[in-house]
């Protein structure tokens, strides 16, 4: 199986898609997908962390002693998460207020550590970046789809840039169950089911 940048990039989009195929990193997937804006914001923040932590882990992979590799990975990941947190506070403060605690929690997202451990620690930087980018974009798309389903059904809106767009007329009765916590599980389950149906054909 020859390695190629394109292949490393595209596997994250479908074949090894983090939330829906390998079912990793579910904490933010379930918690923040109340509005499309939150979903995209969380996805992009995670993508940033994934790409940079993969890159640096991969660069240092020959220097890091295997016995302390997890500690080193976590320090590198935590650094980029803090960078994201500070940048979000400085430039997109309203979004930071909504995502709140879930930004620092990217540090313990098994998706990010999983990619460092399983991929970046064993592969050269250009593959690692392609992998991080693919996984990150796959993660962002998954969050966008799930949050769109939840928001459309639960609030009848789509939110971008702080402005909810009303999709239905004033007679729309929102299915509020979908934007509450249990709705996240049901939404995720349905999407997993659809993905598996498509895959099995």
């Amino acid at each position, binding site marked *: 199986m020859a390695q190629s940048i394109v292949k490393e990039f595209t596997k994250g989009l479908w074949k090894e898609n983090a939330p829906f195929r390998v079912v990793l990193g579910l904490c933010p997937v379930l918690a923040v997908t109340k509005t499309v804006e939150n979903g995209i914001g969380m996805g992009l923040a995670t993508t940033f962390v994934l790409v940079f932590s993969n890159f640096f882990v991969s660069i240092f992979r020959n220097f*890091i002693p295997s016995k302390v590799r997890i*500690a*080193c990975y976590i*320090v590198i990941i935590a650094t980029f998460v*803090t960078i994201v947190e*500070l*940048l979000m506070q*400085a*430039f997109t403060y309203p979004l930071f207020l909504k995502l709140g605690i879930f930004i620092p929690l990217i540090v313990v997202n098994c998706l990010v550590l999983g990619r460092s451990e399983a991929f970046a620690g064993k592969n050269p930087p250009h593959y690692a970046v392609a992998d991080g980018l693919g996984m990150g974009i796959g993660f962002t798309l998954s969050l966008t789809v799930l949050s769109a389903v939840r928001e459309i059904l639960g609030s009848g809106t789509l939110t971008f840039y702080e402005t909810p767009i009303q999709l239905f007329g004033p007679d729309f009765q929102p299915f509020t169950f979908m934007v509450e916590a249990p709705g996240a599980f049901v939404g995720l389950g349905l999407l997993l089911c659809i993905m598996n149906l498509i895959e099995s054909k």
Partner: protein
Amino acid sequence: MREMVNMVVVLTVITAVSGGILSMLKAGTEYRIENQILKFQKAPAINAIFSDATNDPLKDRFSIQAGEREVTFFPGKLKDGSKAVAFETKGTGFGGDVGLMVGVNIDTDQIVKVRVTTHSETPGIGSRAKDSTDFVSQFSGMNVAKNAFKVKKDDGTISAMSGATVTSRGVCTAARKAKELYMDLKPKIKTRI
């Protein structure tokens, strides 16, 4: 032994470099972050309190040491020529801290207006403290020195929001803290305006 030293050195170097980068970034973004917090959390409340001020309360802000913490005061010159300050205190509501921005007229000790800044109260119930002005407008015009700021249930004068007694009490606690702080610091505030 060699391996041991190697592990310690690598981990130390990575941690030190990360720490260095972060502290630089922190210093670089500190001013911007402070401005963003002001803009999105405090500015709407301050602007509502000093809607007819002739100066810019945000720009003229100053801090006074109160015990161990620093309190930021936003001075406002009211239309009738009297001077007022706004500052934030916190009380405990139903879902956590309720931040209350209190504007006090220094010349008469009367409250100009109060507004809720940050809260995590139940949407539609406790959140009415912020979303509607019905509850908080009761405080306007009250004399800070003479009022106890308690809800009617606690033998006070403030009518609580129906179904949200805990939130109403939280706002009152914040108001009482504001009273205490204002009485303590009044002489200091006067010298700064």
